[in-house]
């Protein structure tokens, strides 16, 4: 039994060696990595760590970045592009903290493969503010209504709110409630978040 296990493990290592060979044969491997850093000076990249240079359109700018095949958009944004406003709280599409806009619609970036959004407009929380420093109406309303408490889920809540107002500029409170229902907030700041969305819809 134990021997079988060892064989399985050896097999795993063999698979890694295979990947190493792929890299040696010319696949692009580099990393401006953040959390995933170390790949560049690491002689033993791990499974799925083959990176390819792609260009992402993030907050209106072209951002070249080396991306692994199995890498999620949240990983790329946070740990490679340094856009840490996109939060990871569950990493499996259950909490909404990582919500970003893909061509205007909200997505869980933790459950989106980076390679699949090469041709999309990606908007993160960092991209909402205008160049002259004017806040997005939803952001401004969050200040006026004291939306955030600990602030961790706030970027995701704002992105969901922005997506709602893009589609439905004058939502009812009930519609706003539904739109935010995928964004968990343990501080329970929902009432103030809803007040903020409703204020933003009145103003904009």
């Amino acid at each position: 039994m134990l021997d079988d296990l060892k064989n399985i493990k050896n097999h795993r290592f063999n698979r890694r060696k295979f990947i190493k060979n792929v890299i040696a044969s010319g696949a692009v491997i580099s990393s401006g990595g953040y959390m995933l850093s170390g790949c560049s000076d690491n002689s033993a990249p791990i499974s799925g760590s083959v990176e390819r240079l792609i260009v992402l359109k993030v907050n209106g700018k072209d951002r070249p970045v080396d991306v692994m095949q199995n890498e999620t958009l949240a990983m790329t944004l946070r740990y490679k592009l340094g856009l840490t406003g996109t939060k990871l709280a569950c990493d499996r599409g259950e909490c909404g903290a990582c919500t970003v806009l893909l061509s205007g619609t909200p997505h869980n970036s933790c459950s989106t493969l980076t390679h699949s959004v090469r041709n999309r407009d990606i908007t993160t929380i960092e991209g909402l503010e205008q160049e002259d420093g004017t806040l997005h109406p939803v952001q401004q309303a969050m200040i006026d209504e004291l939306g955030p408490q600990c602030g961790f889920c706030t970027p995701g809540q704002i992105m969901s709110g922005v997506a709602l107002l893009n589609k439905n500029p004058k939502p009812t409170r009930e519609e706003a409630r539904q739109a935010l229902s995928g964004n968990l907030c343990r501080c329970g700041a929902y009432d103030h978040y809803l007040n903020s969305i409703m204020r933003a819809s009145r103003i904009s």
Partner: protein
Amino acid sequence: MGKFGMGQPIRRVEDERFLKGFGEYTDDIKLSDQTYLVVHRSPYAHAKIKSIDLSYAKETDGVLGVFVNKDLEEEGFLCIPHDVVPNGIDGNEVMVPKRPILAQDKVRYVGEPIAIIVAKTLNIARDASELIEVDFEELTPFPNMNTEISSNSEPIFKEIKNNELVHWSMGNKDETDKIFSKARKIISINLINNRIAPTALEPRAVISEYDDLNDSYTLRTGSQGSHKLREWITGKNGKKAADIKPDKLRVICPDVGGGFGMKNFLFNETLLTLFASKAIGKPVKWKADRTESFLNDTHGRDQINFAELALSEDGKFEALRVSSKGNVGAYVSQFGAMIPTMAGCGMLCGCYKIKSAYVDVKVIITNTTPLDAYRGAGRPESAYIIERLVDKAADELKIDRAEIRKLNFIEPEEFPFETALGMKYDSGEYKKILSLATKRANWNTFAERRVESEKRGMLRGIGMSYYIEACGGGPTEFKTIAIKIDGSVIISSGSQNNGQGHETAFAQIAADTLGIEMDKIEVIMGDTEKIEAGIGTGGSRALAAGGSATLSTCQKLINKGKSVAATLLQSSEDKIIFENGFYKIMDTGSTVSLLDVAKATYDKKTFSEDIEEGLETSSEQVMNAQTFPNGCHICEIEIDPETGVISFINYIIEDDIGRILNPLMLEGQILGGAGQGIGQALYEEAIYDNNGQLVNGSFMDYIMPRADNLPSFNFNYTEVSSPSNKLGVKGAGEAGTIGATPAVANAVINALNSINAKPIDMPMTPIKIWKSIKEARKS
């Protein structure tokens, strides 16, 4: 009152950074050459470790180190110490079993750390963790407090009989028993206080760094108090986690994504990264994934209660007797044994005059994740017991539920009032606040609304709770305030923000007292090097303790500047008064601003060399007494009997939170707290199966309140100033949680009562409600 004074709805200074995505939480920090730690955890709730094979993991390329407990002990990383544990009924000190940082001979809960891997990347560390081979011998698990221990099964700790850590009591047993033996009416109730996973949205994360030149460590982690955490690590009362001297450990606390009690505590991973940073010689980061958070963050609540109330025939309360079991989990976390005992039981008498009371609690060790403080920490459990009991008494005696409360309330003129369990309440106007709430909730016309609902085939219920909470616990809080040459004011705070808005609150108090614009004031928190001392945030104490400390430090600072002002104004100190940011000579009216006084201290021509540059002073606020926020929650619901689904019709909160610093921030705290209280009443429960596996360790399975399953609240308050602190504030962090759970539960029970359906336990989920209704309709 100035524009930053008490009661002003100042916008929060921290919000702009949060909503731009610029908040800096632990996982947002990246140190150069940072490595990654992954914990290999136990899949069993109770098992012997026969052997651990690390060889495959160690051989993996990119792995920098693989360690077990023996490695830690050799380096002086000893254990996770407990803090307060109460003595037993017999008065003897309790033998608390050691909690190793990594399990050595035995695992005692699913998710318990066994070994660690440090690697260059997170993915390598994760892969290598799968290669660790542990040979277990399974033992019978004891995942719940009622499991019978047979003679042939091994207890969780050999030294602890029947898994009972301590049997504790409070109150006067003889007198209470005597009243019960003669009572005309006795009402009793069995309750389960469901187990809650705190689930702060920011998963715990730690980055440790070791400096070999100075043999010192820097620890970055989102905690509720950096000084407290350091104290637990480096030692307190002879108990310590590691052989590290306090001056060799700097704890930095960045933004914290919610604490709820849980982030107070010292966890395995905090110590593991510290150890690894020295062993590897590079910074080490660990971040919990959500499953790890469910498995290894301390849980809350989890009690079984039997409570009895002795009454006179006309509904006057005479005595209270409560017997509980409290789950402490597999090991005793810092306050783990205190929460079900000392922390909350004193509040069991609620707001009522009860002649005598007695409570006994058995604290039970189980094969589950350790439990500790969760928002309210013992007080919500007590409020739930007394408020459910009072409702049941009212129903059985056929007295209106508001009236029975009024009949037994402590009257305003009776304060200070000492309860039968020894709590000394400072102030309160319970009857008035209850009346305000019932009026706004149209309590007296509920019967009409119920008839209307019944016509539509719906069940309607209304429930209330009158909660009281004790806060401001902990002895002191520290503040240092300094005014620099550029006119900036720096407040160093011992209490740590984790969502409440400390940066705004303390700056608001200082701006008002010093007469300085808020944008000149910076609040520094969470750094043991920059801040002299501190206790931390918890027990709704930050404003009562930290806010009062800010106020007294400001006043001390103003006095300190008086001599400089006197020189500048060419007057004597006794002729100078301070108002709106200026020192002023009473007779002539000539003035100098506080900022100019601070700047002048740098001027060595006017002042001698020995005058201290800048204005700076520290003070410590000693908390002599607790404060007692209280209030009334009234919840009206409708239940669809076909599905058991609840919809909220109305939710009224009428609070006495003492004087109000910032109504908007207060509202956030109360509503958020109420959301968590409703979560416990209706949705949340961390469920362990008979094998000790947590069966709902994800947000998909564990129902947390969302935007669409909480009501909109109708929140009001009456300001009854607390005499216990300079600001007159009482504390708001936990009040909502304490009040909401019993109010919502009472509303559901009230709806079920209308068709004589059996009461159910929390969480009162649609399936439980539906079953209860179905059974009632059958019979």
